């Protein structure tokens, strides 16, 4: 063992407070120390060359540099020693600047501390082991879960980079929530006009395998190599034969008798249906919950859909399919649901027929919606309309303390659209705070106020009905006066909650949730699209309430992370990770409980735990808790740390 020790003056930064010759003298005699030198600036070229030369000339196998913080120059010197052919993990640094010369005032004490720290580093370096990073092959394909705008964007971006992409959507069509919207704020683009071309692109893309009416059942594996099982629910329609002509839906005995999910229950459909006319794929689907034949075994003499379908696409004998795929990376884009305002009983949703949610109104506006885009609510055109903001947002009582980010603006948009359709309408928005933070949002807010929409600060207290008319009670907090407004339509600015599918997907992928129940990103500022599970990324409202541009931006971000991964033939796994001594492991699974990354895996055959090198992050938590000491934390082994302890006391 030959350790080279290099003490840096850092100009006067260290040398002024630490008596460097004294340090050199103290270290020179230490066990294993082959050479101990001092220099003005170790990080400079001549400094680095000095080390390289000594490694080559003297055959040093460990190097210690006593200088600044390893957080500053450890990478620099690791590269230096590697240049000279030494394993970079055999390098060690003693921090005698940030944690010594800069913070102490007594030269003698600082010098003694510097000696202790360098000795401790030498002792540690003597026990360091050369480490090699392992290589893991990468499967060059990706899975995107959720076919809303975020999932669509992510899938297109990945596929356009040349990688096979599986897009899984549980509904019969992709499009997600955005497909339900009429127009988008603040530009008032028609949502369908900008979304449907993308949907078609997805369907036609040679690199995209679109799996609609399908659900992810099981996921295992890790970064670079996930194994996924997908359940394809039976549509009872042969996708190759269905032309999307729609004669079957016309013929269905239940036509117009089943609430349409897509129309938020306002519109009706039959048992065989497409959710909306621009659906992709344009394939009809039989709803087994309602279809007379599937549910009761009998539909008149014979099912009318089957009778009328010339190509013979109806297949009542179709069965569930299970597909296994391998992918290198996963994008989770499970989106959101509208908050159900039933629990906010003071607003009378579900009790008073003219109280509706934002998303319901969106369907009323839509030209393809149940009223053909005419603003007819329960048969009449409303004249007095009140919007209530923050329903299910910023509300601790119902457990949604967060701001839903989009409600202020969609209320402004809907108020504008209503005013456009009903010019003589009285429209009042009761709001808590106005949050118009995006590009063009504040301007749009001004525009709708100019159009005569009245904004009154103060959230609605309650809605009551008297003589078939609704009244909304509130305080105008700027006037400090309580008031009541009559209304023939009350629109609740309902907030966003995570999609219920997030539960199962989250469990399968072991993703954490933040307090708001949306998926937790790896870092709130710097890694907003990553998760703590390597190879799994987030896009869109699955991570938190988001508007369309933010969802699209995040989706592209997630896609670029996926592509960064998939372009590699192999990924290098950091060698500073935990290793298990399988002979000593008793399989008590303590480490499995501890690890946030699912790195320890139980081997049922061997009855021991193994460590998945690809996902271990090297925190060492498991090594500290392993009762039998079977887990070794590379580069931070017990004996390496104890050697340091012994030297500093």
């Amino acid at each position, binding site marked *: 063992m030959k350790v080279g020790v290099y003490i840096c003056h850092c100009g006067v930064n260290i040398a002024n407070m630490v008596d460097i010759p004294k340090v050199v003298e103290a270290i020179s005699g230490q066990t294993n120390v082959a050479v101990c030198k001092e220099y003005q600036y170790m990080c400079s070229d001549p400094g680095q060359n000095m080390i390289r030369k000594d490694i080559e000339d003297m055959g040093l196998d460990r190097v210690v540099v006593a200088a600044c913080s390893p957080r*500053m120059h450890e990478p620099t010197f690791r590269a230096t020693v590697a240049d000279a052919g030494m394993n970079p993990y055999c390098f060690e640094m003693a921090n005698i600047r940030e944690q010594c010369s800069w913070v102490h005032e007594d030269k003698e004490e600082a010098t003694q*501390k510097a000696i202790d720290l360098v000795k*401790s580093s030498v002792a540690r370096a003597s026990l360091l082991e050369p480490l090699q990073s392992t290589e893991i092959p990468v499967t060059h394909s990706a899975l995107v879960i959720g076919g809303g705008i975020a999932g669509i964007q992510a899938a297109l971006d990945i596929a356009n980079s040349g990688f096979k992409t599986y897009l899984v959507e549980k509904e019969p069509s992709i499009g997600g929530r955005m497909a339900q919207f009429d127009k988008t704020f603040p530009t008032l683009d028609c949502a369908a006009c900008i979304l449907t071309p993308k949907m078609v692109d997805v369907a036609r893309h040679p690199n995209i395998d679109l799996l609609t009416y399908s659900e992810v059942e099981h996921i295992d594996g890790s970064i670079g190599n996930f194994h996924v099982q997908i359940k394809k629910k039976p549509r009872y329609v042969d996708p190759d034969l269905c032309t999307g002509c729609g004669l079957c839906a016309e013929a269905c005995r239940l036509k117009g008798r089943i609430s349409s999910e897509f129309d938020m229950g306002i519109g009706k459909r039959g048992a065989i249906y497409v959710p909306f006319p621009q659906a992709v794929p344009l394939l009809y689907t039989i709803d087994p919950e309602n279809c007379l034949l599937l549910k009761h075994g009998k539909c008149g003499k014979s099912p009318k859909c089957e009778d009328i379908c010339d190509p013979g696409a109806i297949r009542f004998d179709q069965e569930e399919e299970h597909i296994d795929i391998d992918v290198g990376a996963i994008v989770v884009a499970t989106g959101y649901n509208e908050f159900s305002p039933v629990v906010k009983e003071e607003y009378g949703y579900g009790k008073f027929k003219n109280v509706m949610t934002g998303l319901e109104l969106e369907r009323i506006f839509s030209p393809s919606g149940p009223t053909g885009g005419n603003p007819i609510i329960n048969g009449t055109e409303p004249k007095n309309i009140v919007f209530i903001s923050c329903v299910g947002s910023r509300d601790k009582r119902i457990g949604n303390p967060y701001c839903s980010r989009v409600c202020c603006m969609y209320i402004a948009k809907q108020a504008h659209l209503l005013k456009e359709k009903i010019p003589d309408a009285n429209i009042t928005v009761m709001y808590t705070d106005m949050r118009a933070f995006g590009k063009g949002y504040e301007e749009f807010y001004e525009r709708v106020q100019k159009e005569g929409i009245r904004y009154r600060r103060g959230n609605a207290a309650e809605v009551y009905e008297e003589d078939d008319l609704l009244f909304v009670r509130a305080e105008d907090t700027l006037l400090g006066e309580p008031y009541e407004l009559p209304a023939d339509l009350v629109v609740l600015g309902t907030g966003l909650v995570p999609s219920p599918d997030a539960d199962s997907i989250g469990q399968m992928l072991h993703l*954490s949730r933040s307090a708001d129940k949306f998926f937790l990103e790896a870092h709130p500022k710097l890694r907003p699209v990553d998760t703590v599970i390597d190879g799994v990324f987030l896009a869109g409202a699955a991570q938190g309430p988001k508007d369309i541009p933010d969802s699209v931006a995040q989706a592209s971000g997630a896609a670029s992370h996926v592509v960064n991964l998939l372009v590699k033939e192999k990924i290098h796994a950091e060698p500073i990770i935990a290793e298990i001594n399988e002979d000593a492991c008793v399989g008590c699974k303590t480490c499995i409980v501890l690890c946030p990354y699912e790195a320890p895996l139980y081997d049922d055959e061997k009855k021991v735990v193994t460590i998945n090198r690809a996902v271990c992050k090297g925190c060492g938590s498991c*090594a500290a808790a392993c009762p039998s000491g079977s887990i070794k934390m590379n580069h931070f082994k017990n004996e390496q740390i104890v050697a340091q302890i012994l030297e500093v006391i």
Partner: protein
Amino acid sequence: MTEEFKPKIVGFLCNWCCYAGADMAGTSRMKYPSNIRIIRVMCSSRINTEMIIKAFQTGADAVFIGGCHFGDCHYVDGNYRTKKRIDVLKRLLSHMGIEQERLRLEWVSAAEGEKFSKTMAEFTDTITSLGPSPLREIKEEAI
């Protein structure tokens, strides 16, 4: 004992928060007593009880553990485990007759240089007034 008592303190600092906080104290030139000897680990949860007790056994008057604030752990939730482990160990030490003040756990973020230096000054004071570790005396007797 005529010689002035200078406590020996071993500090185990997590790389991401507390170690960076100590660096921050350095770059900001915030002075604190030189008693602590810092050992860097990646996460405060890497520290096992054996190491801590070994430090005491070897003659440390006190042990300091520094990690990230809850919610900031680089490894999601390692610091929750650290807290639990240290809380139990503190009780165990006091049952053994070792003042639990000798073991201190603090959360220091990378930005909290000031907190780090203040904590060091305060901790050194505490230990100075407590006097040398009883284990150190036992060790010296044995020699």
